C-alpha cells in the first residue's frame, strides 16, 4: 500500500483537467489544503466539484426559490423533500435528470435514472408508491430518435416494472432542440411516517459506517463528471461512464431498508448515487459537521484490482451508505444477509471534520469534508439576454385554415400532442393498487394512500417553447399549467420538485435563461403559496456549442382529502353539458400550431394570475362537490385538442357551438392559460355555475355530449375513427412498430 503520488507542474494541471477541474480550481484546492493534493485527492475533488454534484453555477440562483412552508418537513438539501399530509404521514418526493447517460446508452441510462431516484426516496424511510417520467426527444425523423425512444422507454419499463413501483403518468414531447441532448427526468414519490424519517447524516463519534447493497465494480466511474460537460466529437466513447442497473437487487435493497427502518439501529443513511462513495460519505459528514474514516479495502467488490480512486468514484448501482448505532452493526449486517445483500463495516464517524481514507494502514487521502461539499466554488456566471429574443416577439396573425377539420386531425397526429399510450402501456401503471386515475385519462395522476381516505395528485410538465421565447413567463406558465392539471383532478397543490434542464452555463445567454426561469418559478410558487422542496439542475445539455432551449421541468404534488372525489378527462353521458371555465382571447404566440409551421415566435400568452387562480379554485371545488363528469385542461393544441381528447377518452361525441369573433385557427389552437373544459349532468348546471360565480371564474357555454362525432358548429365535423387514427398511431410509427 502506497500513498498516491503528488504531481508537479504541467503533469499536475493535466491530471486536474482530466478530473474535470480547471487550473483555477486546482489552485483554490491548494490554498484550502495548504499543500498540493495527491492524485487520488484530485480525483475526489474532480467528482465533488463537478457541476452535477456541487451546483456551482446554480447554487446562488436556487436561493431565490421559496423552500419553506407550514407543511414542509424536509426541504431541499436532503435526498428528497418531505411534505406533511396529515394523519402522521408525509409524502417524500424528488425529480431527477438522467439526460447525459440516457443519450449515450438509452436503456441503462434511463433504467438507472429510475433506480437512483427511487433510492433517494426510500433512503428517507419512505415506501415508494409512484413514478412519473418527463421525456424530451428530438425530431421524430432524426436518425437517432427511434432508437432513443425505444431504449429509454424500455429502460424505464425494465426497471420500474420489475421493482413494482407504478409509472402513473408523465409528459413526452419531441422537438429539434433535443436532437443532440434528450431529457430523461424521473419523479419518484413515497409515503413516510413523519416520526420515522431518516436523513443523510453521520453523527455520533465512534458509530460504525456500513456499506450495504450490491458490490462495487468499475461501472459509472466519473459519471458525475461526464454529466457535467457538453457533448462533442467522440462522446460515444463515454459509454463506459454509464452505470448498469439491476432492479432485482434494488427490490431486495428496498425491502431490506424498509425492514431496517422499523428498528432503531441506524443514525443516518444515504444513497450512493452520483460520485458514489465519495459523495455519500463527504455529504453525510459535512451535514453533521463530523468527520469520517473509511477503510477502502473493506468495500465489498465484484472486480479484482480496483484502485482506491475507482472504489471511491464508482457509480455502481443499488448501494447505500449508513451509519449504525454503535453495537447494532451485527444486527444490520444479518438483516441484509437475510436478503442476500452484501453488508460490511467500512469505517467510523470521527470528530475531526475530515474525510480520511485508508488503504490498509496507509492514509491515502485526508481532506476537510466541507472542502469537498459546502466549500466548492460558486460561480456567478455572466448573464446576457439573447439578442434575437425580442425580434421573435412579433404580433401573430391567426393563420388561415383551408380545412379546419384536417387541421385538427393534423394537430392530433403531432407527436407531442398524440396519445402516449404506446409509452404507458409498456409501464406497469397499476401495481400497488393505488392508481385511481390511470395514465391517459387524467390531467394529473391520482394515487390513493392506502389506509387513509386520501390521495395524492402528481403533475409534470414543461412548456419549453414558452420558456424559449420568455423563460420567466414560460416558467410561470409551466407552473400554473401543473397547478391547473392538479385542480382538474381535484387536488390542492402542496409543493414542487424541479429538474432545471439547461445548456452550457458558460454561455451568458444560458445563464440568463436559468436565472429568469428560476425567478419565474419563484413568482409562481408565491402566487400559489407553495414551496420547492427538492429537485436537481442539469446543465451542459449542449452538443458542439448548441444548447437546448431552456426546459425547467416541474413536478407538482397535490393532495385530495377524498380519493373518491376526483375527475378524469373523459366525456361520460350523452346530454351532459359542456362548459369552458376561463376566457377565449386567441393568443397564438409559441403555440404548437406555429411550431407545426416551423415557427418559434410570438410572445407566450399573457398570464392573468387572478383569473388563473379563480379557474383553478372553481374547478377544484366543483370536483370536490361531486358536480362534474369530466374536467380537462385546455393547453397544448388548444381547445380543439382538449375537446377531441375528452371525446376519445369517453368513446362518445360532442356538439359544440362557440360564439366568437376569433378566426378559426385562433379559436381552435390558442394555448392561452387559465382555461378548463368541464362537463356535467344537466341537473348539476346551476350548481356548477354558482361555484364558478363564487370564484369569479368566467363561464362559456360550449354545447353538449352526444353522438359519436365531434362537431364544432360551422367549423368542423370529425368522426371518431379519423380522430383515433390520427391520435393513436403517431408514436407507434415513430417507434417503428407500425
Amino acid at each position: 500500500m502506497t500513498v498516491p503520488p503528488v504531481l508537479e507542474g504541467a503533469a499536475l494541471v493535466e491530471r486536474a483537467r482530466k478530473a474535470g477541474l480547471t487550473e483555477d480550481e486546482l489552485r483554490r484546492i491548494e490554498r484550502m489544503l495548504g499543500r498540493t493534493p495527491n492524485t487520488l485527492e484530485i480525483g475526489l475533488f474532480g467528482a465533488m466539484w463537478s457541476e452535477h454534484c456541487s451546483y456551482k453555477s446554480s447554487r446562488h440562483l436556487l436561493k431565490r426559490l421559496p423552500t419553506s412552508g407550514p407543511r414542509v418537513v424536509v426541504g431541499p438539501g436532503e435526498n428528497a423533500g418531505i411534505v406533511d399530509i396529515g394523519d402522521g404521514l408525509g409524502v417524500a418526493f424528488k425529480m431527477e435528470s438522467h439526460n447525459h447517460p440516457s443519450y449515450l446508452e438509452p436503456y441503462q441510462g434511463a433504467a438507472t435514472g429510475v433506480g437512483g431516484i427511487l433510492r433517494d426516496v426510500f433512503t428517507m424511510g419512505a415506501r415508494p408508491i409512484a413514478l412519473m417520467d418527463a421525456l424530451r426527444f428530438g425530431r421524430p425523423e432524426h436518425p437517432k430518435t427511434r432508437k432513443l425512444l425505444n431504449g429509454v422507454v424500455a429502460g424505464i419499463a425494465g426497471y420500474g416494472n420489475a421493482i413494482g413501483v407504478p409509472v402513473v403518468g408523465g409528459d413526452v414531447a419531441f422537438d429539434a432542440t433535443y436532437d443532440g441532448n434528450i431529457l430523461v427526468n424521473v419523479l419518484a414519490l413515497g409515503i413516510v411516517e413523519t416520526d420515522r424519517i431518516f436523513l443523510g447524516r453521520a453523527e455520533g463519534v465512534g458509530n460504525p459506517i456500513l456499506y450495504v447493497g450490491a458490490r462495487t465494480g468499475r461501472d459509472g466511474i466519473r459519471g458525475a463528471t461526464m454529466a457535467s460537460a457538453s457533448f462533442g466529437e467522440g462522446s460515444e466513447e463515454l459509454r463506459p461512464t454509464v452505470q448498469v442497473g439491476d432492479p432485482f437487487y434494488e427490490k431486495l435493497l428496498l425491502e431490506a431498508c424498509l425492514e431496517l427502518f422499523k428498528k432503531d439501529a441506524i443514525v443516518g443513511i444515504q444513497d450512493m448515487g452520483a460520485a458514489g462513495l465519495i459523495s455519500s460519505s463527504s455529504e453525510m459528514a459535512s451535514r453533521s459537521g463530523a468527520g469520517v474514516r473509511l477503510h477502502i479495502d473493506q468495500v465489498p467488490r465484484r472486480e479484482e484490482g480496483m484502485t482506491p480512486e475507482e472504489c471511491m468514484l464508482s457509480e455502481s448501482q443499488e448501494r447505500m451508505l449508513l451509519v449504525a448505532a454503535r453495537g447494532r452493526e451485527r444486527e444490520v449486517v444479518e438483516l441484509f444477509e437475510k436478503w442476500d445483500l452484501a453488508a460490511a463495516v467500512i469505517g467510523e464517524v470521527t470528530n475531526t471534520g475530515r474525510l480520511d481514507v485508508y488503504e490498509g494502514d496507509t492514509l491515502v487521502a485526508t481532506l476537510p469534508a466541507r472542502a469537498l461539499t459546502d466549500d466548492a466554488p460558486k460561480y456567478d456566471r455572466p448573464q446576457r439576454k439573447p439578442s434575437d429574443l425580442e425580434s421573435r416577439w412579433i404580433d401573430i396573425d391567426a393563420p388561415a385554415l383551408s380545412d379546419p377539420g384536417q387541421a385538427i386531425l393534423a394537430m392530433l397526429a403531432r407527436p407531442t400532442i398524440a396519445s402516449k399510450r404506446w409509452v404507458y402501456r409498456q409501464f406497469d401503471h397499476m401495481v400497488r393498487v393505488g392508481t385511481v386515475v390511470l395514465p391517459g385519462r387524467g390531467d394529473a395522476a391520482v394515487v390513493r394512500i392506502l389506509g387513509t381516505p386520501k390521495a395524492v395528485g402528481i403533475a409534470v410538465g414543461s412548456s419549453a417553447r414558452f420558456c424559449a421565447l420568455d423563460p420567466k413567463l414560460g416558467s410561470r406558465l409551466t407552473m400554473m399549467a401543473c397547478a391547473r392539471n392538479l385542480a382538474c383532478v381535484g387536488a390542492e397543490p402542496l409543493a414542487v420538485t424541479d429538474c432545471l434542464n439547461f445548456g452550457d452555463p458558460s454561455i451568458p445567454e444560458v445563464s440568463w435563461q436559468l436565472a429568469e426561469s428560476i425567478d419565474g418559478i419563484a413568482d409562481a410558487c408565491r402566487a400559489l403559496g407553495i414551496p420547492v422542496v427538492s429537485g436537481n439542475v442539469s446543465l451542459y445539455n449542449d452538443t458542439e456549442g448548441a444548447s437546448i432551449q431552456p426546459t425547467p421541468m416541474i413536478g407538482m404534488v397535490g393532495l385530495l382529502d377524498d380519493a373518491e372525489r376526483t375527475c378524469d378527462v373523459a366525456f361520460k353521458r350523452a346530454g351532459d353539458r359542456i362548459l369552458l371555465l376561463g376566457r377565449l382571447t386567441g393568443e397564438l404566440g409559441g403555440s404548437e400550431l406555429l411550431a407545426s409551421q416551423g415557427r418559434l415566435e410570438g410572445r407566450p400568452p399573457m398570464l392573468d394570475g387572478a383569473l388563473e387562480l379563480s379557474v383553478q379554485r372553481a374547478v377544484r371545488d366543483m370536483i370536490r362537490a361531486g358536480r362534474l363528469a369530466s374536467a380537462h385542461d385546455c393547453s397544448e393544441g388548444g381547445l380543439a385538442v382538449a375537446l377531441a381528447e375528452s371525446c376519445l377518452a369517453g368513446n362518445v361525441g360532442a356538439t359544440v357551438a362557440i360564439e366568437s369573433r376569433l378566426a378559426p385557427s385562433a379559436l381552435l389552437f390558442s394555448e392561452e392559460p387559465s382555461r378548463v373544459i368541464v362537463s356535467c349532468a344537466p341537473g348539476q348546471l346551476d350548481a356548477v355555475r354558482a361555484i364558478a360565480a363564487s370564484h369569479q371564474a368566467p363561464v362559456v357555454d360550449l354545447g353538449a355530449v352526444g353522438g359519436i362525432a365531434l362537431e364544432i358548429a360551422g367549423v368542423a365535423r370529425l368522426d371518431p375513427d379519423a380522430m383515433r387514427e390520427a391520435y393513436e398511431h403517431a408514436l407507434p410509427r415513430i417507434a417503428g412498430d407500425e
Partner: protein
Amino acid sequence: MRFGIVVFPGSNCDHDVYHAVKHVLGQEARFVWHKSTDLDGSEVVILPGGFSYGDYLRTGALARHSPVMQEVVAFAKRGGPVLGICNGFQILLEAGLLPGAMLRNRGLRFVCEEVELKADGRATRFTSKLSPGDRFRLPIAHAEGNYTADGATLDRLEGEGRVVLRYCDVAGRVTDEANPNGSARGIAGIANEQGNVVGMMPHPERACEPILGNDAGRRIFESVLG
C-alpha cells in the same frame, strides 16, 4: 378463510393480493416467506405476480426451487386451492402443477392494460362464481404471457374444460386482434384436472374495488370462499 401469500424475492404484487384478500374481502391473510418450510396453516395459497429472482433466467424457473414450493406442491396434491397470478402462473408451470410454458409476448414488449376476457370451461375453485361465456375486463401486466403447449395438451385442456379464461373482443369472440400477447388459442388462464390449482395472467387483485374503476376481480377470490 386463511390465505397464505407466498413472497419470493422479487414478488411485487404480494401487498396487492394481501390488500384485496384482507381489506376488501375481509379474510385472514398472511405472507409466507419463500424460505419457509410450512404454509402456516393456510387454507388457500396464492402465488402473486412480480419478477421472482429478477426473472433473468426463464420466468419462475428459480422460484420453483424455493423451499416453500415443496410445501405448495404437497398442498396442491392434497387438493388445497392454489392460485398463481401472472409470475405466480409462470411458477406453477415451472413447478409442473400446470402444463405448458410461457413465451415472450408476441410484440416483444411489456403490456399493461385492461383486457376483455371471457370465462370458459368447467367450474374450478377460483372460477365457480363465473359461468362459461361471462365477459368482464381485468388488467394484465406482463412481458411473458404468451402461453404455449403442444397441440395434444391444448386439445386435452380444452376437452377437459380446463381453459378457464380467454382473451376475447367486446362481442366475446376469441380473435387474433383481441389477443394481447399471442397466447395459444387465446388462453389467459388454465386449471389442473382436479380444478384446485388455477393459473392466470390477468390480475384480479387489481380489480376488486369501484374506486379502481373495476371490481370484476372479486369474483375470482369469492369463488374460493364458496
